[in-house]
């Protein structure tokens, strides 16, 4: 147990050191681009009075709704393409083509189609974050051993039992790995779409602050985005480990 504790303490040492260095070195305000921590905190105070809550809610709602649509659509399409060979041969090349387009370029397409509102941001995320889930679901569905399929037939599993107990469950390690990639993409997309084309959200706050050279405000927004990205990824990892407790040899696909 003490080994685990030691690792925790050591793990916190470097981030703590960096924060302390920032506080100490910037104290007198000697670095133009790295404002004193007090300035950043007072940025948060001003921002709080001027709609930090609305910006945060706007970003998080678009993120959650867009990501949810991407995951549901991704698993559905991935399941269909993974199960039916003809569909796969017909569509796979186009999915690979669209997947190699950096998803951030969907922002201008959606802006022309949908304008600058929340529906644009949600659509960008729903489309851009769906592809990793589609591909990982196809892999997961195809990777289920055929003995298991035979077993399910022999035991006369009903179609819904077969879908949930065998196919989706068997594919879930792969699906969750894809969902994790998608989450990263979704966060990148919410930030870029707000920076490029929006009048609200944290991304918009950061870009607006940087255009007026308010460096403390820019840092305040950037740090908040960093915290959101980190928390989202950590929470997802916890969920991933819980959901995949049954996988042998650990469930951590990416680390």
């Amino acid at each position, binding site marked *: 147990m003490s080994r685990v504790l030691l690792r925790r303490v050591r793990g916190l040492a470097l981030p703590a050191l960096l924060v302390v260095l920032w506080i100490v070195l910037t104290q007198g305000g000697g670095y133009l681009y790295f404002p004193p921590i007090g300035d950043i905190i007072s940025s948060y105070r001003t921002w709080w009075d001027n709609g930090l809550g609305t910006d945060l809610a706007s970003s998080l709602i678009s993120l959650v709704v867009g990501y949810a649509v991407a995951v549901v659509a991704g698993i559905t399409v991935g399941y269909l393409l993974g199960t039916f060979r003809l569909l796969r041969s017909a569509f796979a090349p186009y999915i690979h083509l669209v997947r190699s387009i950096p998803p951030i370029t969907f922002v201008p397409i959606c802006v022309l189609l949908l304008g600058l509102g929340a529906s644009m941001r949600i659509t960008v995320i729903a489309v851009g974050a769906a592809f990793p889930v589609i591909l990982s679901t196809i892999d997961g569905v195809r990777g289920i051993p055929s003995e298991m399929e035979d077993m399910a037939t022999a035991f006369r599993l009903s179609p819904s039992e077969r879908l949930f107990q065998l196919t989706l469950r068997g594919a879930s390690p792969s699906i969750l790995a894809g969902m994790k990639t998608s989450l990263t993409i979704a966060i990148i997309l919410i930030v870029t779409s707000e920076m490029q084309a929006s009048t609200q959200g944290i991304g918009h706050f950061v870009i607006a602050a*940087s255009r007026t050279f308010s460096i403390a405000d820019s840092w305040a927004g*950037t740090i908040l985005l960093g915290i959101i990205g980190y928390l989202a990824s950590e929470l997802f990892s916890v969920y991933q480990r819980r959901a995949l407790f049954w996988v042998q040899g650990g469930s951590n696909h990416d680390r």
Partner: protein
Amino acid sequence: MNLTSHRARERLFLPVATGVLLLAIWQLVAARQLIGSGAIPTPVASAQALWGQVRTGGFWGMIGTTIGYWVIGLAIASALAVLLGIAIGLSPIARDFTQSFVDFARSFPHVALIPIAVIIFGTSMQMVLVMVLVGALWPLLIHATDGVSDLDPVALDTARAFRLTRSERFRHVVLPGAVPMMAAGMRISAAIALILVIVTGMIAGSPGLGRGIVSAEQAGDSALMYALILTTGLIGLALNGVFDLTERRLLHWHASQRRLAP
């Protein structure tokens, strides 16, 4: 007709058929303005815009700049990532100290740093390279660390039993053992690097395809915009192909590259 030739025909014919169908739907939706009243250009118009671009120097300049930034940025990022990754991977204590920081740095949405990078560096090449470094460093670093630290203990013990020296073990066992993992990390880093080159162009206006896409958008030239977006996809596909080839050449000895005999 045997099964294999039937499958081969299916693999050739079906995608072409869907391609034609998708193009037809796109043409219909765009020409009749079924969605977004004129915001979607027809595929014909996009193809014409692309053809018009292919004959200009500006287009190839944009592609050259984009790929140039990508190559230089990725080279710097991967050199650093491999060195740091191996160093961290060789020492369990270094792993303990850096893990939480690396996790944080990897999950940080790096695009959020672009505005600050622009304040510090302007829209220069330096800014793009710094952003590529900040974003593309981590996946390769993590894979290099894991590749070095998760080596097959039997191979290491065997090397020790044969009394290989430390440096021999490193050169003949540790390094080759970690290369496949590094190749996997390199792929992720390369994709992130391309995204960052394009997104810095879109948000900060540094030269390249990203800026081209946004200026086409602002000029209301949706046909050109679609043509340029498709170009980024083709570049992504081409770079992926280069990686496939290199991996197959360099790692032909590794189990992951072997195909089962038919």
